[in-house]
């Protein structure tokens, strides 16, 4: 365990992480997530989804967005852009977009259905 953390530290000093680049990449992910979350909210509201189907729709949508990010934005090599691809790209900001989703979902559900 100790040896592996030492190796990791050494690796990080040889290939340092640039904080501004990381911030920029995370910002791009967060912007895409927020925008798509709001659009998913519009779709869910218009479709008239209620309670669990709505949240499942959101999770499915974020999964789709993650796949698109993986294929289009990182060109299937997320390790080049993210230190921890699983946490930063696949799961990053999933719950940050939830409030925007609920907002537009409620609005369009109220306008179209109820």
């Amino acid at each position, binding site marked *: 365990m100790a040896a592996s953390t030492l190796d990791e530290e050494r690796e990080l*000093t040889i290939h340092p992480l640039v904080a501004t680049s990381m911030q920029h990449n995370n910002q791009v992910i*967060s912007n895409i997530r927020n925008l798509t979350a709001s659009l998913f909210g519009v779709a*869910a*509201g218009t479709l008239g989804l209620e309670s669990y189907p*709505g949240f499942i729709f959101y999770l499915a949508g974020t999964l789709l967005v993650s796949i698109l990010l993986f294929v289009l934005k990182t060109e299937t090599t997320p390790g080049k852009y993210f230190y921890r691809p699983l946490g930063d790209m696949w799961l990053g900001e999933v719950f940050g977009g939830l*409030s925007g989703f609920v907002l537009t979902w*409620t609005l369009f*559900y*109220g306008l179209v259905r109820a």
Partner: protein
Amino acid sequence: MAQPVVQTIHRDPALFWWILLPITVVMILTGILRHYAMTLLQTTPKKQDLPKIRQQRSLVRGVNLRTNANVLSPSSFQARKAYMVQAYQEGKFLADPESRGKPRPNPMSDPAAMEGMMGMMKGNMAMMVPQSLIMGWINAFFSGFVIMKLPFPLTPQFKSMLQSGVGTRDLDVRWVSSLSWYFLTLFGLQPVYNFILGSNNAANQVTQQMAMSNPGAGMMGPEQDPDKLFLNEAENLEVLDHQWILEGIEERLVAKFAA
């Protein structure tokens, strides 16, 4: 138990134009206003005299030496470390060397600390005033009727809050009054602000309250004894395990090209 009948309420379409839209627009505009108010209220840092700046910067220098130690060769790192540690221990960089070892004055009487507190007060005011104003406005104008139905069920505990002013006992909690739309916009408008104002805006009060709740080390800085900070930094430098980044570079290079 039989499934309860789904309650439907027919509402005037004008509710959208006269309630939902105004609240949303007001919330967006308040966020923008708050962003610019915070930008304007920010006090420019006061100009400090030379010894104070020297004291601050030399501490930062020690930290920088520690974080970037790996790019220095062992001999040059040792030379820098010896100099910094000695200077720290002698108190060479202190702003007023005479007051070394004396107890610190009360931070409340220090004008610099008061300045920082004023800044925090202003930030708090810029958050609290619009929030309470808008809640009062919504309660005064838009309470007492149901405006929309949430697409997800809630527990009955929310009934008193989200149906404030609607005095029906049996109404489903999913029917909510305008105050809940206010809460939804309060939490959900952050992406909108991001797109309008750029990513590091000061528009959303929720994120600001989170930032306020754990004040960083920067705020506590001026109240600490600089001499203690220096001695602490000297100790950190002493125990640092120095590894030169260029150590074994030949093997690494050969291995890279061989691969």
